């Protein structure tokens, strides 16, 4: 998945506001523990991705992380001894000893897995909708080399993907038995190193090795604050405020052990609706989103 400019409010916002928005959604997913609120944040991320016209890409990439979420849920169910409602007795298992799977540990594991998927989806949304060049310009004063490395990595992903596809096609064109995986891996590594050398040479001749003093003088051009910057910065603030209200401030009490206690009163439902609304409302303003 790579960044491509699309006609959407999130793409029209500056990288700073856009990144703040993605960061707020990810932070909210880490802050809240109530499953209803977590599901609301998942819906908010998906809604934002659809609003940014990258819904398919984000959903597809996030779906790859589902096995990871299931693994977290399974491990939590097997390793956690808390919980009152036993749903499966596995008896004595090697290394684990006497193992009972409880409903509470299973549900909490699923919540942890969902949280991981939502946080990764926020990262996908950031990758697909936030201009890496603009981020480089923003971060340049803080750490030029780190920011450039991140930008180059983003830029090189599609190039290396094309290289890999070419290598795979070339191997399909070979008559006879295919080379071993180790042989192919060595060849692929050599190809990547060749590519890295080419890029390094280009960076050199484009002044990357110029004096640090010169670079420090170069500041990004001021970009006017537009209506979408304001909307997404505001949305980020509201999402964070709601998450903090629900979590540390005790607005949505949730506990998994010893028995499940899920807050599902009107307050929690209102917080959930607020989170979704705050995340998707900035996409309602379609003015000035053209390329």
């Amino acid at each position, binding site marked *: 998945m*790579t960044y491509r400019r699309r006609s959407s409010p999130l793409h029209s916002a500056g990288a700073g506001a856009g990144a703040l928005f993605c960061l707020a959604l990810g932070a909210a997913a880490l802050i809240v523990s109530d499953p209803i609120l977590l599901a609301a944040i998942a819906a908010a991320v998906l809604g934002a991705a659809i609003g940014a016209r990258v819904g398919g890409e984000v959903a597809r990439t996030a779906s790859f992380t589902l096995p990871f979420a299931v693994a977290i849920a399974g491990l939590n169910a097997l390793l956690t001894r808390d919980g009152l409602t036993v749903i499966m007795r596995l008896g004595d298992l090697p290394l684990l000893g006497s193992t009972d799977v409880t409903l509470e540990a299973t549900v909490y594991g699923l919540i942890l897995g969902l949280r991981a998927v939502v946080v990764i989806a926020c990262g996908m949304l950031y990758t697909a909708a936030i201009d890496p060049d603009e981020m480089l310009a923003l971060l*340049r004063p803080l750490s030029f080399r780190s920011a450039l490395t991140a930008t*180059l990595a983003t*830029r090189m992903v599609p190039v290396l993907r094309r290289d890999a596809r070419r290598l795979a096609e070339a191997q399909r064109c070979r008559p006879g038995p295919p080379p071993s995986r180790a042989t192919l891996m*060595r060849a692929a590594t050599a190809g990547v190193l060749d590519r890295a050398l080419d890029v390094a040479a*280009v960076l050199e001749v484009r002044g990357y090795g110029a004096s640090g003093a010169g670079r420090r003088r170069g500041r990004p051009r001021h970009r006017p604050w537009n209506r979408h910057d304001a909307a997404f910065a505001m949305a980020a603030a509201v999402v964070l405020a709601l998450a903090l209200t629900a979590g540390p401030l005790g607005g949505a009490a949730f506990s998994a052990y010893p028995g499940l206690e899920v807050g599902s009163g009107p307050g929690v439902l209102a917080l959930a609706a607020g989170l979704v609304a705050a995340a998707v409302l900035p996409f309602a303003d379609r003015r000035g989103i053209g390329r």
Partner: protein
Amino acid sequence: MSVLEFDRVSYAYPGADHPVLTDVTLTVEPGELVVVAGASGAGKSTFLRAACGLVPHFHGGTFAGRVTVAGLDTREHGPGALSGVVGVLFQDPESQVVMGTVRAELAFGLENRGHSAAAVARSVEEIALALRIADLLDRSTAELSGGELQRVALGAALVGRPALIVLDEPTSQLDPVAGDELLGLLRRCNEDFDTAILLCEHRLERCLAAADRVIAFAAGAVACDSSPEGFLRWAGVAAPTLQTPGARLLAGLGQAPAAGVKRARRRLRDAGQLPEGPDSPGPARTVASRRRRSRSPAALELHGVWHELRSGPVILRDVSLRIVPGERVALMGRNGAGKSTLLRHAAGLLKPTRGRVTTAGRVGLLLQNPNDYLVHDRVADEAPAVALAQAGLDPVSFAERHPRDLSGGERQRLALAVVLGDEADAAAALCLDEPTRGMDRGDKAALARLLAGLPGSVVVATHDPEFAAGFADRVILLADGAVIADGPVGEVLAGGIYFATETARILGGWKSILTPEEALATLARPRAGIPVQVPTP
């Protein structure tokens, strides 16, 4: 002050036995457009890399002598420090664009050098307007075609208004139209900005007309430093593989060489040797008429093949082709016309969304980058001895060498041997995708001879009309995924502007003649009075 000075420069790469540059001394003045010529391995690229400071700072090695760029000694100033006075454009468009958007790409070099935000913004806008890429400014670099990427890379090299720009085969991966556009832009920059240009190019017939001077390298040393005409005179005697087709034609007619089609035509017209008359070629035969003509069994046949991308454009539109055994076919067209996709369908790498492909046996496919085929540590592990011999590599002397230590031409042959495979599994048809990229004229001629001797049919996708004329007996021209011309090589290539050989353009498509040898043989017959020396092809 000269913009570039080489003073007795010698250089050897780390671990190399022999120097790549030997005692090179020359100067380049402001505003000069200098073409750098030479066979593969002659030292051209190393010379260009020394001119921008990559040699020795980036590559290391043993360096002697002194290189000065706009007064800066490259021993004391690395490529980063020199980037303000010298811009660089390499071959591969993919590797030299490092940012995500065109605007950021153009700004990158200036920001590295600490220009103010206002100066960066103004320079970016101006260079985008000058190179006609203003409409690309907010596009993602991942979406650009090869030609667009190369124009953006040229913009990035020029945006700081360097005194010198060096270009290493910038058109080798571009189709003739995009290549000519790029050379036109270079010429404009040279004239408008007074930028000195060092241009390394194998297809000399494309750029000599614009050059002020040609520097030819041989075995790492300057073998010729002269005007384009002087260089062609020298090449006629000392380096025939560097001669342009036009120069060979003029030499055969007893004329002094001329750089470019216009000057060659004038010279022939002044001498009364330019054939003129009603002998212009007729239109290329249509696909249907050609299909009707051929009754022999096909080695490879495409029946109404379509390739439509999901949520994307149509790449191939109803392509029907019939390649008979032994046929030599050149597949031509602009970048993105569908040539590579067609070859992938022929080899079974892709499935048509409509239509079908039938073959008389295995179809071998050699893709653009031979390195993708070379995965082992020994040449002998890559291909059987019989295939190595067929591809022109001695199975004994090459057996123990590492594939990545071979020259570009040798790697191409080794990849060809990989695709040819065992005798027991001989290919009914062999497809090659742009096999001549980055090859000098000698290597191309050797490849054409090699392909001519292979059993089975051969289909080559190429941008090089001279190679197509020397190798093929049939040309298929693709545009926007459809076949727009299909006929004998003379019919398709003689009347074109971009897809035409230099000889055909000089002769105005007369008698569908494509090569100097054909022209001299034809001119010698009806015009006994014209002195003709038929050169060895």
